[in-house]
């Protein structure tokens, strides 16, 4: 796998380099979140399921406070929140849990080609079990076509799973419209909101969402914790995936990790309070970054809709450079070419391919993620560094030279070899 390296870049002691621009892969745990968690490791360490002594009670109280904080962020009731080990588990549980529970009457699932890998893999697994899955395409801007969704729903459809915000290109799907369609047709609507919760306003009632996955480490909370919202009215039923002690209303067994849950709750509370102002700030930084690149580099392309997009994301393809060279060229920036899960592979992003991005451009994309600790200095450095790298790589590129001479690259017939 990846080579080990002795350097220890942390956001605190190396504020400048490398600049962290990978906020969609993971976010640093907010120091306020860490502070909230600390007492629950060594001092208030009880098992929240120990109902007969004070150590258990204080942990349980902390867990229930956090449950309310999570619920409040998305307009849910705290009884509708189940804690999981993260969004991957939430997505697995939502899809497999609902599909399995209703399998006698319904055997059809609808999702989208650009979903996170854990949704697509859960769907493929369900196909092997005999379920039918429709993978909706997306338009060139990354958004689903609502007419196609309507046409895909049948009376055998149990659940529609469409992410709120894409992890690679940051586009925001028309969640409220999708929710209305699903509710009207009597189909459950699950949304993977790992990249959306705390970044854009979400309201499970107004948007008619039946299940929603949330991740701790994408919203400045800890890793290893997530949540699944499961609507009570109309009631969504699911088969559990992890059985045992019967915690979380039987949907998810296992000792609840109190410190992590406290961290998730605090992260949600902070996000709720600061979301509006933070979105404005990030949009300013994002525009500064994109405008800075566009001003100095021709032939760059934004992947995904610019307006219907979270403020902390850009995904840009640079024509006439070579993908690996580009990644190597911007080594002072912590960025990725696609999602972290697949970043070790050199295959082009399936998300970009689904948008119809040409293979060459899909290979030379950078996902630039901004977040709570990003600064103007970070952005200015990133612009300078990327411009320098792309300019240098293009100077060595015969394709760039030909393009400057006005030759249409696509018209060239390359010899096989």
């Amino acid at each position, binding site marked *: 796998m*990846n*080579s*080990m*390296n002795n*350097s*220890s*870049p*942390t956001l*605190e002691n190396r504020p400048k380099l490398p600049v962290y621009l*990978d906020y969609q*892969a*993971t976010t*640093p*745990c907010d120091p306020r979140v860490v502070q909230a*968690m600390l007492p629950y*490791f*060594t001092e208030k*360490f009880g*098992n929240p*399921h*120990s*109902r*007969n*002594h*004070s150590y*258990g009670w204080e942990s349980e109280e902390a867990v229930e406070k956090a449950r309310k904080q999570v619920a409040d962020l998305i307009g849910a009731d705290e009884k509708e929140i189940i804690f999981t*080990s*993260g969004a*991957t*588990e939430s997505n*697995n549980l939502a899809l497999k849990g609902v599909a399995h529970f209703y399998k006698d009457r319904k055997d059809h699932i609808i999702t989208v080609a650009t979903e996170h*890998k*854990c949704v697509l*893999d859960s769907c*493929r697994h369900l196909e092997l079990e005999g379920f039918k899955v429709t993978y909706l395409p997306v338009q060139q801007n990354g958004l689903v076509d609502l007419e196609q969704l309507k046409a895909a729903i049948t009376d055998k459809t149990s659940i529609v799973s469409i992410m709120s915000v894409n992890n690679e290109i940051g586009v925001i799907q028309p969640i409220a419209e999708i929710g209305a369609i699903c509710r009207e047709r009597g189909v459950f609507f699950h949304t993977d909101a790992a990249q959306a919760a705390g970044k854009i306003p979400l309201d499970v009632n107004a948007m008619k969402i039946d299940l929603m996955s949330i991740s701790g*480490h994408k919203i400045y909370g*800890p*890793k*290893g*914790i997530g949540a699944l919202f499961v609507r009570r009215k109309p009631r969504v039923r699911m088969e559990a*995936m*992890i*059985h*045992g*002690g*019967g*915690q979380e209303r039987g949907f998810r*067994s*296992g*000792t609840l*990790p*109190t*410190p*992590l849950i406290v961290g998730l709750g605090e992260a949600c509370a902070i996000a709720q309070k600061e979301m509006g102002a933070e979105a404005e700030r990030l949009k300013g930084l994002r525009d500064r970054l994109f405008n800075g690149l566009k001003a100095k580099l021709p032939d760059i392309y934004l992947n995904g809709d610019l307006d219907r997009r979270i403020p902390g994301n850009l995904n840009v393809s640079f024509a006439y450079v070579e993908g690996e060279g580009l990644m190597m060229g911007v080594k002072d920036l*912590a960025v*990725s070419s696609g999602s*972290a*899960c*697949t*970043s070790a592979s050199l295959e082009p992003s399936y998300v970009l391919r689904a948008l119809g991005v040409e293979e060459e451009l899909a290979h030379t994309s950078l996902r630039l993620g901004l977040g709570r600790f990003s600064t103007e200095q970070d952005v200015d450095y990133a612009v300078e560094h990327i411009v320098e790298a792309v300019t240098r790589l293009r100077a060595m590129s015969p394709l760039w030279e030909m393009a400057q001479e006005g030759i249409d690259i696509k018209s060239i017939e390359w010899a096989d070899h």
Partner: protein
Amino acid sequence: MQRAIYMDWNATAPVRPEAARAVLSALEACGNPSSVHGFGRNARKLMEEARIKLANRVGAKVENVIFTSGGTEANVLALANRGERRLIVSAIEHDSVLKPALAAGAAVIKVDRNGVVDLDHLRILLQQDARPALVALMLANNETGVLQPVAAAAEIAHEHGALLHCDAAQALGRINVDLGVLGADSLTVSGHKFGAPQGVGALVTNGTPVSALLLGGGQERSRRAGTENVPAIAGFGIAVATIDLAASANVTHLRDALEHRLVDWDPAVTVFGRDVARLPNTLCFTAGVKSAETLVMALDLAGIAVSAGSACSSGKVRPSHVVTAMGFDAARAGTALRVSLGETNTESDIDAFMVAWKRIQAPTATQIQPAA
């Protein structure tokens, strides 16, 4: 307000200071271990160091350690990988083994009066049905602390073409746990029982293939998807590296002292599993009469935290399935208390327990009959 004396270490244990420091330091860093850049590589390094420490501790190959969200998930993952195998589980397994196993129609191995699994019965169950089996037998019971003959059971299982999964959640950190010595094909370990944080555990195998329950990114060699819980895993590694089995001797001493004093004061006290090998820290007993729930609450008011059986049963105190399986009636099972000690308990904690116990048990105290 003074903190209660904590004697419920089998429910969960406080995070050791060294492990807490490792967690904190990892929380203050940032990085997804799947990311290729320096932040990601640093996170991966923390995780792989912990993996090596755990592999070394339990005598496994590094690539056969699969980090999970805890013991429950590890057990469920092990059982979900049975494929076409039928299940045979002991009657005293943790709910995370017992519940899915019973739902899948598992055969149940009896235990004797001391809470030790009946190997002859295991042999009969294996011979009853020609289909290959997966046997689940825990190393140390969470309620009684009674150790199980896992190595012998594994040998019998293997003679019959069966595999053996061992839940060692309560054992790691308290007694020696070695995959080779146990002869198990897979092993569950849990962090929060021995000083690592909650929210991390592992399934360790001897190379038996594992296919994922949680699907998605290719983490954990495609055996467990989801961004890894790096801080908790880092804390787990440090907790594993600082396991001090010699310190268990002191815990044994305290446990034995409490046991003797309880029996000396009231000869009617029955200590479960007293005649067989147990975890050094666990004492499960009954004095009859008062329900476990009443006793646990009275002890809590007296500033002592213990439990009635396991903590997982959704808060409802019910007769222990473990004590029931040992052949005791519901009255005994409903009055069983579990005292589980840890490295920070002292002699004075034992004194305090006895003072509180004598007051609660004194004839002047209100007698409350156990629930029917």
